């Protein structure tokens, strides 16, 4: 009898899971629609003439009028939005005014650079930030706590371009520990074919270990700097979440049971602190994925931040809107991911969602 109830429980759990997935997807779709509407409206409001962006400012009036109609600018706004949606769904974001290439191709080129940098950075930030935060919380008010606080404060307050230049000066120019600006040395650039655009991944998959080493030595300094930034934030949040958890009664219960201190800290308290930490890490990651203009400039990193800044300064609206959409999609995607992680980490969410 207990068997049948167990099965019934599993079936309804499956149904519940499916229903939740459907709801989640619907939410994502709606969010995207809102995002598209927002970018569309921004595109209409900015004082940049989309026709001039296509034909240049020396074309005759007749060409202007024809393109005006071709772009659908004579139609009512909702029809224009519909046209915009159609284009976006076929992957057509228009052409860049600056590079004269499709926006999609441009983004395909610059986004992997940012993705790679951000991912290595968030790994560094999380792998150091969480243990440091835990350590500071456990040693609250003692030397370790002060040390982590000051270390984090420097990460917060030092301008990143300054740290970047200093890092280049010390580790590249003087000590020769790392490679300089750029993603890869020219010598290796053509030894790997771009598949994912993530050079670490591409070179490893193709067994080009020399190229891999070169890429790694290029990425480690900017990634460490960005990672230091997110580490400062993550360790601070970890510390406060952990202090909150360590003061809870269930920690006393565990102590009364004779559970060793390491397990109380890393399993009981961190298990609970992990739930809000997911949001913190996801937000840090999203921030990194937007591209950091300063870091990308200092390290000549051809990423999304540089691309967007350039486009914005040159009123290249198609590129700006395309990039905005990508960033929006990243936020939606990461929110989705953290929702799923919540489910995994917190049984209370599993029930109520």
């Amino acid at each position, binding site marked *: 009898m*207990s068997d049948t109830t167990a099965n019934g429980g599993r079936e309804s759990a499956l149904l519940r899971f499916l229903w939740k997935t459907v709801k989640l997807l619907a939410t994502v779709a709606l969010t995207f629609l809102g995002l598209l509407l927002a970018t569309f409206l921004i595109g209409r409001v900015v004082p940049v003439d989309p026709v001039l962006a296509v034909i240049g400012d020396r074309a005759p009036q007749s060409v202007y009028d024809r393109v005006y109609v071709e772009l659908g600018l004579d139609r009512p706004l909702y029809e224009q939005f519909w046209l915009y949606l159609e284009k976006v769904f076929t992957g057509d974001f228009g052409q860049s005014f600056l590079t004269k290439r499709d926006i999609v191709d441009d983004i395909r080129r610059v986004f992997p650079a940012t993705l790679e940098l951000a991912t290595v950075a968030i790994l560094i930030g999380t792998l150091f930030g969480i243990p440091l935060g835990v350590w500071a919380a456990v040693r609250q008010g003692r030397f370790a706590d002060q040390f982590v606080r000051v270390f984090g404060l420097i990460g917060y307050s030092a301008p990143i371009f300054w740290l970047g230049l200093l890092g280049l000066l010390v580790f590249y120019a003087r000590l020769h520990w790392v490679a300089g600006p750029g993603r890869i040395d020219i010598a290796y650039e053509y030894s790997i074919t771009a598949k994912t655009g993530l050079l670490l991944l591409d070179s490893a998959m193709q067994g080009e270990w020399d190229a891999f080493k070169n890429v790694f030595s290029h990425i480690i300094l900017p990634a460490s700097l960005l990672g230091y930034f997110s580490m400062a934030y993550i360790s601070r949040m970890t510390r406060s979440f952990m202090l909150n958890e360590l003061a*809870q*009664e*269930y920690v*006393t*219960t*565990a*102590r*009364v*049971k*004779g*559970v*060793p*201190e390491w397990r109380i800290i890393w399993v*009981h308290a961190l*298990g*609970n602190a992990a*739930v809000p930490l997911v949001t913190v890490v996801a937000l840090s990651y999203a921030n990194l994925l937007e591209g950091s203009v300063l870091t990308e400039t200092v390290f000549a990193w051809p990423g999304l931040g540089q691309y967007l800044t350039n486009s914005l300064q040159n009123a290249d609206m198609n590129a700006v809107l395309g990039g905005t959409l990508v960033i929006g999609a990243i936020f939606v995607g990461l929110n989705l991911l953290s929702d799923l992680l919540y489910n995994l*980490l*917190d*049984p*209370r969410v599993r*029930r109520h969602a």
Partner: protein
Amino acid sequence: MSALLTVDDLRITFPTRQGPSEVVRGVTFTLGRERLGIVGESGSGKSQTGRAILGLTPAPGKATAKVLDFDGTDLRAATPAMWRKLRGTRMSMVMQDPKFSLNPVMTIGKQLLEALKFGAGETRAEATARALAMLEAVQIRDPERVFRAYPHELSGGMGQRAMIAMMLVTEPDLLIADEPTSALDVTVQVEVLRILDRLVRERGMGLIFISHDLRLVSSFCDRVLVMYAGRVVEELKASELKQARHPYTRGLMNCLPQIEGGVRPLPTLERDAAWAR
């Protein structure tokens, strides 16, 4: 009866901005394998007394005593490793509210097994069997379901039973119950108390029952300590509560509402700074 626990001149001090503040001031008592109640209002130091016996005085508080002896072990000199061993196997504590005292992201089963894992050395299967038997002993009808459940999936009464199971599964000699029923409905309170009472008597444990409920304590314990402002102001047998002499205890008794012939309105509890001296 040989003493299981001897406490002499227990003092607990917390540093504050205005200098050290003593919240427990010279508590002395002995406990055999009996049920001792500690009553007092909030802030009287009863909970801190219980925690100090388990070595769980929260930092930056400090507990000192002339004697703090548990079955021949001097607790004042206990190292962290010794504490862990004692706590896991020989002394334990049931806390007030299972909503807070159980880890919300861990199943009851896992939390129960944890008590055994770091206590006695036995296989996982043996431990699971023992844990399930313990859940049955606290009158949980479907122990397997509760074993797999998370704390939020249980009612308050159910959670507190699971808590009691967790604390008794290693068969300790001393149990401290710190307001174990204050967070429960009145009807559930009686049930949980009955379970606790039966288990404590069957296993011949020493019990310290901490409560602010004088009537509950007197019906449930053999002896009662009345605490006020960090001191024991009176110690008496539960059956002789009516003959209490200390004005504070008398005051507490007078505050209990009577079904017939009681005083209305209930008298205000009188306090005298001299009692704290």
